[in-house]
């Protein structure tokens, strides 16, 4: 009864996004659109210093304001509200110290947002400044101010994590290689810039618990954090997710803090409490993509065969660990690129500083290392007088190869096909030649560049990898589907709907895919690392198959035949006597037989193992492969870079929701474009210089290049219908491809993002006048 035998009816076919209707009508209720009777407004007092001891905190002046109903500090939480994973180093409200500008210290609930702000401004908060470290290369100096927590193991307190990959004898290989290249690269912080800012709404319940509405990524983690911080049993905390206005990895920690703060204030006042961040508050306080410094050495033979990669990365985690240890680990795994080597020696170290803090962001360390290694490939090609495409083809990982990490690649390895397709679709060979000729005599230069990637699916050795789904048929014969995964715009609810429709043989319109809610869904771990399609898709597939089995038994009973004799015509069941029975009648018959029309599915990812000390093992159970080519125009008079076209070739295993898959690629490329050219974040002495969209410039519509997408389908047996994920890899290679194209056009190799006018013209970034004011003003302090 495998649907694919007859060609898929819903999977891979054009379908609308399940939540598009309410969004085009403007009726979707985002968090800030939910208002309740008696609801109070909350606001946090945030630190105006990058590092300080809290000497005195007196909230009584705030409480004296008539419309202020409650003020909380870390004393209102169990264990001062300590939370964090994998390192428990953060607090729901700062305890003893603040470690970055924007660190939350106290929270006020009042009748109006204005009164809440007045309350925040009335709090007496004396801060004793502490020395800061904001340069990542000084964080581990003996005399560096301590940012990280005390530690007993003798490591520097600002040391957070080290991740290594080891293969062969890198030192020996570097000695004997025909060519060795060495360079330094850096990538800056990046702001997620979701159009909807953070926030939470907490409603106290009659039994002493709390219901949280929050646009977070992982409702179950939110529930557990709130329960822990308030000392409530998890059953008394329910976390529900309204529509989420974008996330990209960014709606974890700060939203957990906002949830716990609102929950504590709601319990204290007995009223619903809502907190919505202003844009400035969001930009100053929220975590960013980690800034990273990288030192790379590659060695190769004269004929272009890669031999060795040595890579040192220093990752700025900022004030707290958040998910930086995972980001650093993922960066280390992907640092050498999607190539064969005789030896690698990779070390990515994460450290604490007073630069706000960093955490999960689409790509999770891979866009950073890809920017370095893919430029090294082009530098090597130049050195060896080879075409960059040829160099990559010669060294690309192929089916049956071993990763340098030690893992054999035995299916769905399509890098060579991606390179071939990108080369052909972009008309690479002709343009490389003709642009070189054109550029010799023109100020306005043209360039074309390529970057390739591999990207491990799901959490890998980062954590336990499983997902659950539930499905049931209600009394109106509607099918209700749940998943613990969040849809923050990427389309996973539609993906799950199409999978369930396909497996059950019912129209997708019959299915209601519920939003995540800890009371109805099964815990599925965090919605990060492009996990949703494969993990959630498989759990959905299994749940639907279990339910289908029940219906098939009922159908066979009604039709007086064996299950194997059943035939389907759209939803209708047909038995050996050609008698068609509507799907609803089968469901009714199942009920009359006393069968339960509900099922669950749980899917566990294939087991993998990583040895952190040896730096060897199987980091992920499968990999996404892709290639992007960028064509640019560079004006050598002004330094202006314009990206004209991007060809994106991605292997998705199987495309389940075509419109959604393409949307992920377009959107990923746009974020990569901003990362490459315009999204500049500067922390000067710990103060953020860009606090709203006027200075933090994400790509606008007129800046978008033409984008040509090619989706390959080299099926992954462990994927639902063969599918792999795409949300993260889409942005990984864009910046590197653009930088390589700029080098082809201008002859300038730009190793530090973003690629600004002055870098193109002068080869370096100019310092801009910096100020502490903007960040403070943004916090209204």
């Amino acid at each position, binding site marked *: 009864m495998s649907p694919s035998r007859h060609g898929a009816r819903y999977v891979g076919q054009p379908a609308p996004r399940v939540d598009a209707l309410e969004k085009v009508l*403007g009726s*979707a209720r*985002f968090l800030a659109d939910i208002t309740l009777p008696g609801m109070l407004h909350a606001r946090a007092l945030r630190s105006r210093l990058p590092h300080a001891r809290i000497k005195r905190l007196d909230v009584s002046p705030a409480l004296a304001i008539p419309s202020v109903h409650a003020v909380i500090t870390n004393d209102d939480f169990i264990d001062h509200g300590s939370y964090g994973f994998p390192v428990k180093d953060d607090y729901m409200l700062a305890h003893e110290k603040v470690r970055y500008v924007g660190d939350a210290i106290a929270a006020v609930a009042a009748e109006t947002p204005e009164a809440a702000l007045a309350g925040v401004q009335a709090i007496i908060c004396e801060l004793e400044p502490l020395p800061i470290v904001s340069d990542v290369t000084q964080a581990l100096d003996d005399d560096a101010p301590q940012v990280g927590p005390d530690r007993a193991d003798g490591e520097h307190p600002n040391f957070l994590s080290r991740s290594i990959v080891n293969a062969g004898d890198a030192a020996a290989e570097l000695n004997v290689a025909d060519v060795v290249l060495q360079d330094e690269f850096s990538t800056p912080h990046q702001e997620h810039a979701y159009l*909807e800012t953070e926030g939470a709404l907490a409603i106290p319940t009659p039994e002493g618990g709390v219901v949280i509405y929050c646009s977070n990524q992982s409702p179950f983690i939110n529930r557990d954090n709130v329960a822990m911080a308030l000392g409530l049993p998890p059953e008394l905390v329910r976390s529900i997710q309204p529509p989420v*206005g974008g996330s990209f990895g960014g709606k974890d920690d700060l939203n957990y803090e906002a949830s716990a703060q609102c929950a504590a204030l709601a319990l204290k006042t007995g009223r619903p409490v809502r907190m919505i961040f202003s844009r400035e508050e969001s930009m100053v306080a929220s975590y960013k993509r980690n800034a990273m410094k990288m030192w790379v050495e590659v060695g190769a033979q004269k004929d272009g065969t890669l031999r060795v990669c040595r890579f040192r990365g220093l990752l700025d985690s900022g004030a707290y660990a958040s998910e930086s240890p995972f980001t650093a680990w993922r960066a280390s795994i992907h640092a050498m690129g999607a190539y064969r080597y005789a030896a690698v020696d990779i070390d990515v170290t994460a450290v604490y500083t007073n630069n706000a803090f960093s955490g999960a962001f689409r790509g999770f360390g891979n866009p950073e290392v890809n920017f370095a290694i893919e430029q090294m490939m082009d530098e090597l090609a130049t050195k060896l007088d080879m075409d960059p495409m040829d160099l990559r083809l010669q060294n690309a990982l192929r089916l049956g190869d071993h990763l340098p990490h030690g893992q054999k690649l035995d299916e769905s390895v399509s890098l060579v096909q991606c390179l071939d397709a990108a080369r052909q679709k972009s008309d690479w060979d002709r343009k490389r030649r003709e642009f070189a000729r054109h550029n010799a005599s023109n100020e306005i230069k043209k360039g074309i560049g390529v970057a390739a990637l591999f990207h491990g699916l799901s959490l890998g050795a980062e954590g336990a990898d499983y997902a659950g789904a539930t499905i049931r048929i209600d009394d109106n014969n509607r099918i209700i589907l749940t998943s613990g995964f969040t849809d923050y715009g990427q389309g996973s609810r539609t993906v799950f709907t199409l999978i369930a429709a396909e497996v059950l043989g019912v129209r997708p319109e019959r299915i209601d895919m519920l939003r995540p809610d800890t009371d109805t869904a099964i815990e599925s771990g965090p919605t990060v690392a492009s996990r949703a399609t494969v993990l959630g898709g498989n759990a959905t597939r299994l749940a639907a198959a279990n339910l289908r089995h029940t219906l098939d038994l009922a159908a066979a009973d009604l039709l007086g035949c064996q299950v194997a004799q059943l035939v389907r015509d759209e939803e209708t069941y047909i038995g050996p006597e050609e008698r068609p029975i509507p799907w609803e009648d089968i469901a009714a018959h199942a009920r009359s037989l006393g069968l339960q029309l509900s099922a669950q599915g749980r899917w566990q990812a294939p087991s993998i193992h990583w040895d952190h000390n040896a730096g060897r093992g199987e980091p992920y159970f499968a990999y996404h492969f892709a290639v992007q080519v960028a064509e640019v125009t560079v004006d050598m008079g002004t330094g202006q870079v314009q990206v004209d076209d991007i060809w994106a070739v991605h292997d998705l295993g199987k495309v389940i929701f075509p419109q959604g898959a393409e949307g992920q690629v377009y*959107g990923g490329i746009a974020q990569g474009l901003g990362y490459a050219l315009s999204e500049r974040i500067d922390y000067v002495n710990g103060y953020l210089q860009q606090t709203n*969209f006027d200075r933090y410039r994400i790509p606008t519509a*007129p800046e978008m290049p033409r984008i040509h997408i090619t989706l390959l389908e080299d099926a992954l047996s462990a994927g639902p219908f063969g599918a792999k994920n795409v949300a993260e890899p889409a942005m990984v290679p864009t910046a590197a491809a653009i930088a390589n194209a700029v080098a082809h056009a201008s002859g300038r190799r730009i190793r530090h993002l973003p690629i600004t006018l002055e870098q193109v013209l002068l080869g370096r970034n100019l310092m801009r006048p910096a100020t502490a004011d903007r960040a403070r003003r943004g916090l209204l302090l």
Partner: protein
Amino acid sequence: MQITFSLNHQTIEIDAPADITLLTFLREHLGVTGVKDGCDVGECGACAILLDGQLVNSCQLLAPQADGREIITIEGLRAADGGLTDLQRHFIDDGAVQCGFCTPGMILAGEALLAKNPTPDREEIADALAGNLCRCTGYIQIFDAIAATARERQAQTTTGERP
């Protein structure tokens, strides 16, 4: 201050505080939550409305400035039968919606463009959206939806289906 204006085809007489933005007034006082707050400084277009047919950012106006004007928000954009407009349907069909936070502003920007220029090319569409940020879609499918709507309206005009 007492003002009178038309909101989504209905005349409203109301007292409007002089010290709040039109965005806050629409959202918090009138419950028009399809108008979104994305930045409050006039940079993102999430709060866009049609004011006498012109696309404007409501966070950059004060509430009393609505006096005597005609305002259309996403809630006021409906086909004659009360259902989806062709542009809204194309937003769905062409994948122009991801998280949906920018969507109301984008659809209004599309309508403002098509009212002025019924046959825009891709560059004209992109320029018309320059004040509306979207972090999810990369804009491409939004261009597609607007272009498809323009083509459809043109075809209907020439066949006389639509005045």
